């Protein structure tokens, strides 16, 4: 009963806040007055002055995209060098050695692509300096990059015969200082109030009650946790991520962290509604996402509470924390995988087979059920274009979206964007399963072992970052394979999305007629859900059968591995 109340209150709060944040973000990116302007307006102007950005200059899609790619490339190079040199740099309180080259590449790519896959544990690998200058910065700007691309796409869809999509630098600045930074400041403060740590002190040597020595690692954690949740990054300050008592000390901090990791993605749906001047459009997308979320949550809860014949227990507590219990662990696992966050408060590897499958499937669908900040919105718009196209084929009319014709070029780009992460997931999993290096670090046997590899590449391709953690990935093979997967999964979508934005912006808007296929009613919601499930199902069902599904049936028969 208590469990049900927690879930319902969480979902209600989400529904109540998302439209408000969405409206606020619309004002931010349209350049109107909003509540944060008096607070940080000076900072915006100062950034433009320091960097030489002309805030009135807009550009076409290729220039916008060039800015995105270049800025991300610089980010990867800087973060790579920072890790390779951390031993020689200050704020390395625990005297940690330089990070290996392949882990540095993996981590640099991982944080720049908003994935935050971690082949390491923060407390014994990364200095405070790397955590701040490297990881925290990318938590902000990779999220900002996602939001900017989404806003550019929205402009492309809603502007009439335009060439320009806005300025990447202005959008990025605004997303960081008006949206992410204020929320991160508030959340950091609230988390510290619950017991999350925020200090530059050395780790502490304690002598426990039983007389043994315990080293307690410290650090500026709360500020990084706040942004890793808000920016759907998910990379923990500590290895145990949001299961660590210093990262997530109480049920209330857990509630805040769950809300933080979905709220901007959910809000952006309504931002889109404001640009399209149609609340119904926004609600249609929101409902689609919400229904898919609810289905996954239902299956996951049912599975987690069901009896496990192998372990002879219902609702096991392996890899879960007492203060959260089972319901909050399952809710977190679903929320963090529908969005591309990937922070965890329970170990996904130890979830029941079908709960693990729901997490994996959420990622495989392309991180479009709310999804990453920005990337969730442009991801679902890709699926909307596909749906509109298929509906158009059915009735024999040229497909239209928001009054603009969807033609061959847009469809080619759409298909590219849908295929890019799928190729990573299936092809890379196949490679890893067939070479010794891919199988060497497997811990669990049987179908669960296959699930671990499949999950790793889903997480990389979908830019999620959560893991079936038993798979050892801090080696050349996995660090490099996953890094390539993350790059394809991120930029293999951003490039076609920007191309679509550019070509849609140029088109005329034809007025609505009785023949227009509406994209803001129940019929469309059902159609969209079906397309998402059919595409996801056809692509990934065979792989699922080999992993979690067969494991589920074997578990019911009491077969262990």
């Amino acid at each position, binding site marked *: 009963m208590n469990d049900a*109340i*927690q879930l319902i209150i969480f979902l209600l709060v989400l529904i109540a806040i998302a439209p408000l944040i969405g409206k606020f973000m619309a004002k931010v990116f349209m350049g109107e007055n909003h509540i944060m302007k008096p607070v940080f307006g000076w900072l915006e102007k100062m*950034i433009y002055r*320091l*960097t030489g950005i002309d805030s009135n200059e807009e550009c076409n899609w290729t220039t916008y995209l060039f800015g995105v790619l270049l*800025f991300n490339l610089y*980010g990867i190079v800087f973060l790579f060098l920072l890790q390779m040199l951390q031993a020689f740099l200050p704020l390395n309180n625990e005297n940690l050695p330089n990070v290996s080259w392949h882990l540095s590449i993996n981590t640099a790519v991982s944080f720049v692509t908003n994935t935050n896959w971690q082949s390491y544990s*923060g*407390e014994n690998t990364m200095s405070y300096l790397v955590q701040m*200058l490297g990881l*925290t*910065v990318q938590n902000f*700007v990779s999220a900002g990059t996602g939001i900017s691309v989404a806003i550019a796409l929205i402009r492309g869809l809603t502007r009439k015969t335009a060439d320009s999509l806005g300025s990447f*630098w202005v959008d*990025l600045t605004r997303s960081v200082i008006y949206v992410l*930074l204020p929320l991160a400041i508030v959340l*950091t*403060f609230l988390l*510290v109030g619950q*017991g999350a740590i925020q*200090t530059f*002190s050395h780790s502490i*040597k*304690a002598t*426990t*009650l*039983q007389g043994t020595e315990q*080293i307690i690692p410290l650090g*500026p954690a*709360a*500020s990084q946790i706040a942004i890793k949740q808000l920016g759907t990054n998910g990379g923990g300050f*500590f*290895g*145990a991520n949001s*299961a660590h008592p*210093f990262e997530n000390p109480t*049920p209330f901090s*857990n509630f805040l962290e769950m809300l933080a990791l979905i709220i901007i993605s959910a809000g952006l749906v309504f931002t889109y509604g404001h640009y399209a001047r149609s609340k119904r459009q926004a609600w249609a997308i929101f409902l689609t996402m919400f229904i898919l979320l609810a289905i996954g949550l239902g299956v996951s809860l049912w599975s987690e509470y069901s009896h*496990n014949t192998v*372990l002879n227990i219902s609702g*096991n*507590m*392996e*890899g*879960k*924390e*007492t*203060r959260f219990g089972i319901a*909050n662990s399952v809710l977190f696992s679903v929320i963090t995988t529908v969005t591309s966050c990937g922070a965890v408060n329970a170990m996904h*590897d*130890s979830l029941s087979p079908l709960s693990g499958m729901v997490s994996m499937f959420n990622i495989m669908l392309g991180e479009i059920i709310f999804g990453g900040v920005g990337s969730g919105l442009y991801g679902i718009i890709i699926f909307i274009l596909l749906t509109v196209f298929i509906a158009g084929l059915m009735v024999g009319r040229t497909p239209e979206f928001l009054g603009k014709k969807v033609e061959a070029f847009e469809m080619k780009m759409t298909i590219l964007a849908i295929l890019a992460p799928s190729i990573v997931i299936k092809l890379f999993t196949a490679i890893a399963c067939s070479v010794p290096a891919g199988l060497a670090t497997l811990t*669990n046997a049987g179908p*669960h072992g296959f*699930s671990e590899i499949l999950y790793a590449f889903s997480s990389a391709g979908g830019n999620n970052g959560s893991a*079936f953690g*038993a798979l050892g990935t801090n080696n050349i093979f996995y660090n490099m394979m996953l890094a390539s997967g993350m790059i394809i999964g991120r930029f293999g979508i951003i490039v076609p999305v920007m191309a679509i934005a550019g070509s849609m912006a140029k088109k005329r808007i034809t007025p609505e007629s009785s023949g227009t296929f509406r994209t803001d009613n129940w019929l469309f919601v059902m159609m969209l859900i079906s397309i998402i499930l059919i595409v996801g199902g056809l692509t990934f069902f065979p792989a699922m059968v080999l992993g979690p599904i067969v*494991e589920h049936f074997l*578990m019911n028969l009491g077969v*262990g*591995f």
Partner: protein
Amino acid sequence: MKAQSIIALKFLIVMIILTGLLYPVVMTDIAQLTYPSKSNGSLILKNGKIIGSELIGQKFDSSVYFWSRPSIIGYNPVPSGASNYGPTSDTLKKLVESRRESFAGNNSITDISTIPKEMVFASASGLDPHISPEAALIQVDRISEARKFNTNQKDKLFEIIRELTEAPQFFFLGQERVNVLMLNIEIDKIDENN
């Protein structure tokens, strides 16, 4: 193009200073001022020495203390972590069976189905500071016997558990739980006072 590449570089530097330096430093200052104890790890002092953190669980296996949950890292926090055993893992099955047996044996439990789940499964962080109140109550007999408590002192034990049990936050969030380290600090006081 050239203009863009210079802007990108300058922009990265500005962001590093703003979000990588100013943001964490200012937040640390605010945190240190407003929550000095919590921001430094909720450390617990006893006779001037640090005996641990309220939030970080400790290993307890002596019969005179409440036991904490199984931990795959033995409550050594560098690094934190979990077993990551899957739901059909035979290794996990054997581990759980042996934990059940030893917990039942040590606490004179005849019906193993009454053992709270968290006492046979390892936590996610390996540092879980809590157990359920049921898991504490089930250990009272063993501790009283080991400490040779009289009935008065044993009643005191029940009282401590009641006092330290944290209800779900704001009545609905999370699970009822009790902090093992805080419990054990209190039992030591019973011994000293009587």
